[in-house]
């Protein structure tokens, strides 16, 4: 039976070509879109977690309310004690100190006077401890364009774009102007050890990376930092686990009030990521539903056209005594084969295109110049396990549904009418 149907499909191109082309197109687009959205979403979560939000983050109440402004005056206090506590209470997580701040980088001329200036987005992390994981987490060594990573205090990295703007090369001295935790003017000279490009437009415009001890010194912080970030040991964000940790921590500090009281936020609570992630998930569901519906309608029509073309064949088969149910089932078996072939080819094509976008990506950095969320400049696809079936299943189902709908006509044919048709 299968062999017979397959031969029919392969020999009669009119019967199979159009439905297969439709299924291939639909399935490949679904697979590609799935991988593409997954890649962008994954990169976005990963970038945000590593550079900004952590999997969870501890800040003060006041800092949370004004987080976009990076208010160092609202930094966390008694950090050593707080760190010891969270490391004891949540030993499977890694906890790191961060300071984010705004400032101005000033490049001097040979008389020591201002030659060029540019705003900088400062990120202070543990660069110099022997056992630090921050260098690897932020992918610093691979992001260096010129020069090298800081090896001692007083050395900083600045974004390659900012270095070009200021006409600064590694080895030169620049001055950071910012304010201390108490609001005083703070100025400090640093040697630019290297320039970096993270591929995150929001950071590549004017990032400045320095060791946290340097930042604490210039900002007059002793036992304070603006943020403590927590990461799960496997490096993957898990919303359920993050919620558990968050609830436990915040319950322990529920009696602490005021703007300097600590509060824990999870990744989804920050940078409007929750609404963005939910929105994208809804879009994926809508996309796939619309695709299945649209393909079913197209294939239904294709089935009707095919049915009209094969009107005589069906009539003959019914006239010579073949049961309507058997004819109907054979059409469905045919559609399963067509759907399988189309879905398989579509999945292969979709995966191939997704693989290309995974390796090469598309550069949207020019469109991200004013982005405040940490979006990657190059959008890449990511092939995950569901990509192997996310297009295949709806491709198969829509073909079968289309055929089932168009095949209903078979049951409406009357035997008397069939003989009349055969006579003419």
């Amino acid at each position, binding site marked *: 039976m299968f062999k017979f149907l397959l031969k029919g499909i392969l020999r009669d191109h009119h019967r199979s070509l159009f439905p297969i082309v439709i299924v291939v197109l639909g399935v490949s687009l679904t697979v590609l879109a799935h991988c593409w959205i997954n890649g962008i979403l994954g990169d976005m979560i990963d970038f945000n977690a590593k550079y900004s939000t952590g999997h969870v983050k501890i800040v003060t109440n006041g800092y949370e309310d004004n987080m976009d402004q990076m208010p160092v005056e609202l930094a966390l206090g008694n950090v050593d004690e707080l760190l010891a506590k969270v490391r004891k209470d949540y030993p499977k997580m890694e906890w790191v100190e961060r300071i984010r701040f705004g400032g101005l980088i000033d490049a001097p001329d040979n008389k*020591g006077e*201002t030659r060029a*200036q540019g705003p900088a987005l400062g990120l202070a992390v543990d660069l110099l401890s022997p056992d630090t994981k921050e260098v690897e987490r932020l992918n610093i060594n691979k992001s260096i364009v010129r020069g090298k990573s800081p090896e001692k205090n007083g050395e900083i990295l600045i974004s390659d774009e900012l270095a070009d703007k200021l006409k600064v090369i590694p080895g030169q001295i620049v001055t950071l102007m910012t304010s201390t935790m*108490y*609001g*005083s003017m703070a*100025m*400090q*000279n640093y040697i630019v050890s290297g320039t970096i490009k993270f591929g995150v437009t929001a950071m590549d415009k004017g990032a400045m990376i320095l060791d946290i001890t340097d930042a604490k010194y210039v900002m007059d912080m002793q036992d304070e930092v603006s943020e403590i970030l927590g990461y799960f040991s496997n490096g993957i964000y898990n919303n359920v686990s993050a919620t558990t940790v968050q609830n436990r921590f915040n319950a322990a500090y529920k009696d602490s009030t005021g703007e300097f009281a600590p509060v824990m936020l999870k990744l989804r609570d920050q940078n409007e990521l929750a609404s963005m992630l939910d929105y994208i998930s809804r879009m994926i569901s809508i996309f796939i539903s619309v695709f299945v519906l649209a393909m079913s309608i197209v294939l239904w029509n294709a089935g009707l056209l095919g049915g009209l073309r094969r009107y005589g064949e069906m009539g003959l088969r019914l006239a010579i005594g073949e049961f309507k149910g058997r004819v109907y089932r054979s059409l469905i078996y045919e559609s399963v084969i067509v759907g399988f072939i189309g879905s398989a080819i579509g999945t292969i094509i979709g995966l191939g295109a997704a693989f290309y976008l995974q390796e090469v990506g598309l550069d949207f950095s020019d469109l991200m110049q004013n982005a405040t969320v940490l979006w990657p400049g190059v959008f890449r696809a990511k092939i995950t396990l569901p990509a192997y079936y996310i297009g295949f299943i709806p491709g198969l189902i829509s073909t079968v549904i289309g055929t089932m709908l168009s095949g209903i006509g078979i049951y409406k044919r009357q035997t008397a009418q069939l003989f009349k048709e055969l006579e003419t």
Partner: protein
Amino acid sequence: MFFRKVIITIIVLFSNQVFAQDISANEILKKIDANLSADNQVISSKMVIHGKRGDRTVESKSWTEGTEKSFTEYLAPARDKGTKMLKLGDQLWMYSPGTDRTIQISGHMLRQSVMGSDLSYEDMMEDDKLHEVYDAVIAGRDTLENTVCWILELTATEKDLAYPKRKLWADQKRFIPLREELYAKSGTLLKRIDFKDVRSIDGRWYPTRMIFKDVLKEGQGTEFIVDDITFNQDIPAYIFSKASLKK
């Protein structure tokens, strides 16, 4: 009927009497400028900044000549000691001894807070005489701390002023502002200044304590206290040079 006419006549006569005594708003501004401005002045002051993490006091000494030149040296706290600022025309430089660098403050940096206070660099640079850059009208009268004031509404006559609109409560007797509200072009209130402890110094009235409040910023404001002020001194010319920043 007759009684009503008498009352109206008295009111009209009284009103005329009051307006006859009035001077124009721009003349009030000139008198205020005469009190606040001088050919040059040397001020020793304290700035008490009521910040989120407690109060901080920054001490400084400033030399000012006309509206174009100003030099400030910070004396305390230890972390800020030796920091100097020089204003020449519309340019501002800052020197920090820790870095031995002279840095020009320009662009959006001018709107940043000075030492975490409620004053911006633009505020520090703004020495223009009010009557030269604003047109004033009397908007009403008020009483502040038992002192009768005119309320003046000032509109900038020049572009690029930090505050295109101001509202000023002027003491009717001493011709000194007792309160000022500074507005953006859109009409949004940006800052409020209360002038306190008005004293007679060298034949002029001068407020020796000013409370600045940046209304867009949280906090309790910044007090600017004049410890000592002298007018029309012989200030050496080198003070207003970039070389003096490093001395």
